[in-house]
């Protein structure tokens, strides 16, 4: 699946800014559908990021992150041509990974 994550990694002065937009329903498990049935919880629990294969960020999430999660983070010491990879895992076992090369802002 290539359409469930949009990423950008740009060098801005002395840091690289990484922006990630994930496609995910982030269901809390407390919402009801049109028939009054509870919609089961379905949410991203873990997001990890690496720079050239080295871990830089680990994010544990609950159901309080908005639908189609958005995340910005910044990396010091990264340069143009470096590879940033982001992986998310949700509570039903789905996993998505995407990487992107750092470019000039």
């Amino acid at each position, binding site marked *: 699946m290539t359409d469930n994550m949009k990423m950008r990694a740009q060098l801005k002065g002395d840091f690289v800014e990484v922006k990630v937009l994930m496609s995910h329903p982030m269901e*809390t498990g407390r*919402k009801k559908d049109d028939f009054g049935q509870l919609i089961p919880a379905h949410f991203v629990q873990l997001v990890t990021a690496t720079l050239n294969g080295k*871990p830089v960020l*680990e994010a544990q999430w*609950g159901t*309080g*992150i*908005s639908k189609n999660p958005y*995340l910005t983070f*910044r990396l010091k010491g990264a340069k143009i041509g470096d590879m940033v990879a982001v992986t998310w895992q949700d509570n039903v076992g789905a996993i998505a990974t995407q990487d992107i090369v750092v470019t000039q802002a």
Partner: protein
Amino acid sequence: MQRRSFLFGLFSLIILMPINALAAIWNKTAFETNKLNEATKNLDIHDEIISPDIQITAPDRAENGAIVQVEIKSNIADTESIVILVEKNPTPLIAHFKFSNGAEPFVITRIKMAETSDIKVVVKSGNQYFTNSKNVVVLENGCG
């Protein structure tokens, strides 16, 4: 062993592995509790010192509690992690970020807020915890 059951066993192993690995990392108790102090206790947060060196940028009033953009920047030396809690949400713990290998203690994300509440941020640096909070007035419930 029959081939079918062997294959089924292999299949379920592949499916279950990532969930088990995840379960080891994800702090279930902290994320599922409906009490803020239970969540912080399960994250070993204690004796937090109020610090203006944690910058929280969020709207004073949110039209829609389903999407509240929050920017957090820690100016505290050796910040290892940032925790976001929303006091009045059904489950107050929103996110726990850990930084390493040159990642700056900075995040922007979008969170759900059930009602008007403080956003409480806790920063870990060494064995010390620092905190700051920002009140957001929510005009429309966002947890549904």
